[in-house]
């Protein structure tokens, strides 16, 4: 049995042509490549810090 009220409630308004600029500004364009690069850079930074700490301890 279809719950029509629920089906109608799920509908969302269409985007109006007048609101395109706001819609574009609100879109998050981050893709998997960006996320991966972020992860790689974070991982590299963490590794670099660890190496630096080891070097300092060796120097001491």
């Amino acid at each position, binding site marked *: 049995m279809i719950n029509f009220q629920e089906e109608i409630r799920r509908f969302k308004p269409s*985007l109006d042509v007048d609101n395109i600029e706001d*819609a*574009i500004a609100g*879109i998050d364009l981050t*893709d*998997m490549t*960006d996320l991966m*690069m972020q992860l790689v850079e974070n991982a590299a930074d963490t590794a*670099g810090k660890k*190496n630096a700490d080891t070097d300092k301890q060796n120097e001491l």
Partner: protein
Amino acid sequence: MLLIQRERKTLIQINRMNYNTDLIKISKAYYNRGLERALLSDLSGAAEYLKKSLIYDKYRTDARNLLGLIFYEMGETADALVQWVISMNLQPEDNIADSYLDEIQRKAGALSEASSLVKRFNQALNIAQNGGEDFAIVELGDITKRKPNYVKAQLLLAILYMQAGEHIKAGRALMQILDIDKNHPQATFLMEEVKKATGKAEVERAKLENAYKHRELEDDDVIIPKTKTQSNLDRVVIYIVSGVIIGLLSFYILILPSVRRAYNTALNESIISNSQELSDVNASYSKLSSEYSELEKNYNDVSQKLDAYEKQNLAFTSAYEKLNKIISDYSAGNYEAAASEYLEIDRSVITSEPLLGQLKEVDRVMLNDGFKTVLELGTAQWNGGNKEQAEHYYRVALSIKADDPEAMFLLARLLQSQDRTTEANEIFDRIVGEHPDSPYAQRSIDARGY
């Protein structure tokens, strides 16, 4: 130390390159799947794959442009524009999205029309979500009529129709969606419900069962070909002639009478109609003729009144002029003319108040001063020895006041002095008979010598 850092950067770059290559491959794969689905008119499925493709590589312009096209095809113009604008930002050169944007902008009023329909849809949705289903149905009906590919509006309309129990209309809306997007999940599901409600699901299932339940041939089955009966030429001719005769008989017996009857009925109806029209025309003619007679009578009446008025006006003018002339001649000393004109006045035509007033004034002048003046003129002429002229004046005076005893006496005396005794005596007798109390009665008796 420097060596280690350089090595680490190199490792990062290598990792980045490897990841990039893998992600691009995944993105491309999703794009290909999306394109495949789009070519099969499965727009919803295609959109899902294309969105995934863009999640892996936002620079995949083909995927973004195709996603825009799918939005556009489903009636979501603004969403399509968003994708193409982003596409142009990410790849400004050599991008087909540029031509799509140009194409839309070139269509006069396309954007304003799309915007107007979206606003109306959003309003109808809001009304539907707040219990105004009937109004929403009317509004969505008009929106989908103007933009049949507006999938979201068609879907909402279908749901509202189903809620109202109008499954046939809902089915029509869903068919429109499935024509655009063959595997639209909601539309497909709702269409199944509509088919169940209308009984079409049973019919389809029966057809499918029949199609797949043909019994396969077994080894013992024999296929007997249909044999053609050989007819000889005579039989064929007889069949043809019989057919023609039966056809003609059928025509004359069955068809022709009904055709004639229909023709006669139509003819009779036409005659009745024409008679009615003729009768109407005659009635109209009679009415117009009567109106014309009435108008003519009115015209004649008015014309006669106008003539009478003109005549009356002419008589009035003439009388007015004559009265003026009398006063004018009298004032100028032309008493004879004044008296003559006074005697010629037609009193029957003087009926209006102003003219009666003027006549009264003329009467007052002529019967008193005028009369006396003429009488004195006569006496002056007699005294001057001009008896003929004196007689004329006396007679003029008498014409003004025919029974004045003084004027009568003077005229009689003048006639007596001219030895016109008989004429004089007649006048003396009239004075005595008509004015016995007048002083001129005794004087007349004395003068006549009774």
